[in-house]
């Protein structure tokens, strides 16, 4: 058991390392240069834009409340990427909706063809370079009715006549919760930027692929393990994360279905997040049903379902999608599940450890991701790290780990059941044998009372060992006891077979106290009688010798012998071929136990019609 735990812990460690490695490898993509912009000016004249794209992160100039840049408007500065919500421009706190103009002056090395990549600039925007309109995404307006939102990511090409560029992005946001340029903007020559764009897309689609694979894997295997409810919830979770992932990177879903309106995409995104937490809730509930039956849990479940239903069936309304509503719901859920799993962990419920770990990592990464979106975590190597992806991956893999452990357990149990079956076969006393003995005793009652008494004693000796025998434990007893058992058995058989059996035991007295596995010699003698007896007499010789510090036990008979092909099947332990033929099972069982206890096995020699010799070795002890 201890060894198993150790093995499992190693597997878990390997899992954690591999997730970190994959995430790390994916997030290190040194495909762009990131120079921090201060006060809306960036000098790129010394950068090699043919090789790498440039991320335009930093502080941009921002003209609030206007779509016309006249230069005399109130101006301030805003962090890009980031939401303008809650930021203070000129003493005025910005709300989530509004309009404004971002401005950035860039000095490129030389005039020529350039390219920009924009995505998730909410809700509609126009891009001007040197006062020339390059692209319009959606239609900007001054309120919700005049604005036409669009979420399509843009890869725009333009020609710069001079090396000084003034980039202006006029943004209006009356549809989304986060106004402004939420994701980074990139500039560069076409080739590196396109490559960068492609890698981004590949990463996203790769993650979607992993999720799809995990969904199938967890579903199929949980289903096979008869955990139907859990398999469905995990599947729903995977699929909803998949949908969310295709949206939050802003590329795959819109690339595949460009006709989707921003309202539909927004709705899908929020619903997918709600479905995620609800499915986790149901998953945990089905895993630990006794912990779920508390009122707060029920309340939360109803709340989640209600909110999800509202999101699905009502048209997109700002109130419902507000962070003030959405994030607290997520948060309450997270806390509630945390306590639930922590309790399961404390109560040492099965699988609670990995689930707890996976869940904690998931929650922490989700929180980090939310913080990242709101406040833009800018730590080296981590700025591109998608915490949400990492958390989901970790959570799912920990479920996969739980599943693997369960599969292993099931496998072990079935193996155990098979062993138990063999054991019961081995310990079984053939009813035919037993009733014949009883009949013999009954017959002898009148005519030969002493013999009947003797047989009863033999029978009880025989039964005592048979019933005491426990296949699962490997406790040894003395050789003498096994030989007595054999004697009793042969005596019983002899009555049935009218004295045709001649048993000879050749064992030195000093070896009689040596330890031996119970029921190793008796089944061999039983086989000799059952399969070896032809007619007339059957001589059985049991010889115990000492050779090279080991005990050699020989069981010889002069019976019919075994054919070579039969020996082969017996040796292989191939009991399937003979069906449940008891002799095959008996031999392979003895082999199995000898191997476990003493690393030895039976050696069978036989010449057809001239008898059989079976021998095995055991260590000599005290």
């Amino acid at each position, binding site marked *: 058991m201890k060894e198993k735990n150790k093995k499992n812990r190693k597997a878990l460690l390997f899992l954690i390392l591999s997730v970190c490695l994959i995430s790390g490898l994916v997030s290190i993509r040194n495909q762009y240069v990131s120079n921090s912009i201060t006060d809306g000016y960036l000098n790129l004249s010394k950068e090699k834009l043919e090789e790498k794209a440039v991320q335009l992160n930093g502080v941009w100039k921002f003209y609030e409340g206007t779509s016309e840049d006249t230069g005399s408007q109130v101006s301030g500065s805003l962090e890009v990427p980031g939401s303008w919500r809650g930021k203070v421009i000129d003493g005025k706190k910005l709300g989530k909706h509004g309009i404004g103009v971002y401005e950035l002056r860039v000095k490129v090395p030389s005039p020529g063809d350039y390219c920009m990549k924009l995505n998730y600039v909410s809700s509609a925007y126009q891009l001007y370079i040197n006062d020339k309109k390059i692209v319009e995404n959606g239609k900007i307006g001054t309120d919700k009715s005049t604005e036409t939102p669009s979420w399509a990511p843009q890869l725009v090409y333009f020609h710069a006549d001079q090396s000084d560029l003034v980039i202006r992005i006029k943004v209006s946001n009356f549809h989304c919760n986060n106004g402004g340029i939420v994701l980074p903007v990139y500039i560069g020559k076409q080739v590196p930027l396109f490559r960068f764009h492609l890698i981004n897309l590949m990463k996203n689609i790769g993650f979607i692929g992993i999720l799809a694979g995990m969904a199938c894997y967890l579903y199929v295997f949980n289903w096979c393990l008869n955990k139907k409810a859990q398999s469905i919830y995990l599947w729903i979770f995977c699929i909803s994360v998949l949908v969310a992932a295709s949206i939050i990177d802003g590329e795959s879903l819109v690339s595949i279905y460009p006709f989707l309106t921003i309202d539909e995409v927004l709705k899908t995104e929020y619903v997918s997040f709600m479905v995620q937490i609800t499915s986790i809730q149901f998953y945990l509930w089905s895993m630990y049903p006794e912990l779920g039956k508390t009122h707060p849990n029920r309340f939360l479940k109803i709340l989640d379902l209600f909110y999800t239903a509202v999101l699905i069936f009502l048209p997109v309304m700002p109130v419902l999608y507000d962070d003030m509503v959405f994030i607290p719901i997520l948060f309450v859920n997270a806390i509630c599940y945390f306590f639930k799993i922590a309790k399961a962990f404390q109560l040492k419920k099965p699988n609670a450890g990995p689930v707890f770990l996976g869940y904690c990592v998931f929650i922490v990464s989700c929180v980090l991701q939310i913080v990242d979106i709101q406040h833009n975590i800018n730590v080296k190597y981590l700025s591109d790290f998608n915490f949400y992806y990492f958390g989901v991956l970790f959570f799912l893999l920990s479920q996969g780990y739980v599943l693997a452990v369960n599969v292993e357990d099931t496998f072990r149990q079935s193996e155990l059941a098979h062993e138990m079956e063999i054991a019961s076969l081995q310990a079984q006393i053939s*009813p*035919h*044998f*037993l*009733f*014949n003995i*009883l*009949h*013999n*005793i*009954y*017959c*002898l009652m*009148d*005519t030969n009372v002493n013999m009947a008494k003797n047989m009863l004693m033999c029978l009880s000796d025989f039964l005592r060992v048979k019933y005491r025998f426990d296949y699962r434990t490997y406790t040894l007893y003395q050789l003498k006891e096994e030989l007595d058992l054999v004697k009793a058995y042969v005596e019983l058989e002899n*009555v*049935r*077979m*009218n004295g045709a059996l001649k048993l000879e035991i050749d064992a030195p007295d000093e070896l009689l106290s040596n330890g031996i596995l119970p029921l190793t010699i008796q089944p061999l003698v039983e086989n000799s009688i059952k399969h070896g*007896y*032809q*007619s007339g007499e059957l001589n059985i010789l049991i010889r115990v010798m000492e050779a090279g510090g080991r005990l050699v036990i020989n069981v010889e008979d002069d019976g019919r012998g075994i*054919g070579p092909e039969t020996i082969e099947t017996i040796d292989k332990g191939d009991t399937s071929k003979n069906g449940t033929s008891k002799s095959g099972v008996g031999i392979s069982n003895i082999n199995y136990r000898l191997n476990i206890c003493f690393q030895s096995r039976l050696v069978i020699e036989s010449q057809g019609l001239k008898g059989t010799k079976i021998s095995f070795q055991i260590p000599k002890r005290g």
Partner: protein
Amino acid sequence: MQVVIIDDEKNSIEYLTELLKKKEEFSLAAAFCDSREGLAYLLKNPCDLLFLDIDMPGINGMYIAEQISSLHPHTKICFVTAYNGYAAKAFELNAVDYLLKPYTQERLFKCLNKLENTTIGLNVYQEISGQYDYNLDMICGFNEEDIVLIPASEIYYIEALQGGCMIHTRDHVFRGNKTLNFYEEKLKKNSFFRTHKCYLANLTRADRFRPRINYTYDMYFKDISDVILISRNKVKELKQYFN
């Protein structure tokens, strides 16, 4: 009534003999510990009542019952068995009376009374014997005038012909009274192999195989000049057997 007892245990025979002495109408003709001797005796000497153990080394009681019932239809048979799930069930179904060891005197007399008043159809034993899984070391072969017990090891092959089977040994050919399927089933453990729809061969007597043009093989035997066919689909099975 002439009684014969076949049981592989001496004590059992003695006990039954003692009990039968109490009934005057029964007289013991013979008792056998060895099933082969018993069958050999019965083939030549009909009796009125036969006590028969089922699980015996050598020849199974079922086969004896079946052979005797077809040879001497008026012989009444009483099975005596220690434990046999299948047989007991088959007997119940066919109203064949049987004794379960250990049995008392009363149970025996009850059984005897019942036997006198019932007759079991000929085919009942054959049916039970056909379905019951057991092995044979010897089978009955028929010559023109008499019946012989042939040890399985002496048989070279059995051939199915129109209306019966022919059992080939080194020097003789006997008629068998069962189907080839029956022999195949009961002789399987004695290295018998069905090489062809019409042939069941004893592989320990086989000498060599020779391929023919159409992917079938000929099987030659030691000591005798007979050749039998191995059909195409059996060749593969046979190769597996020898590997």
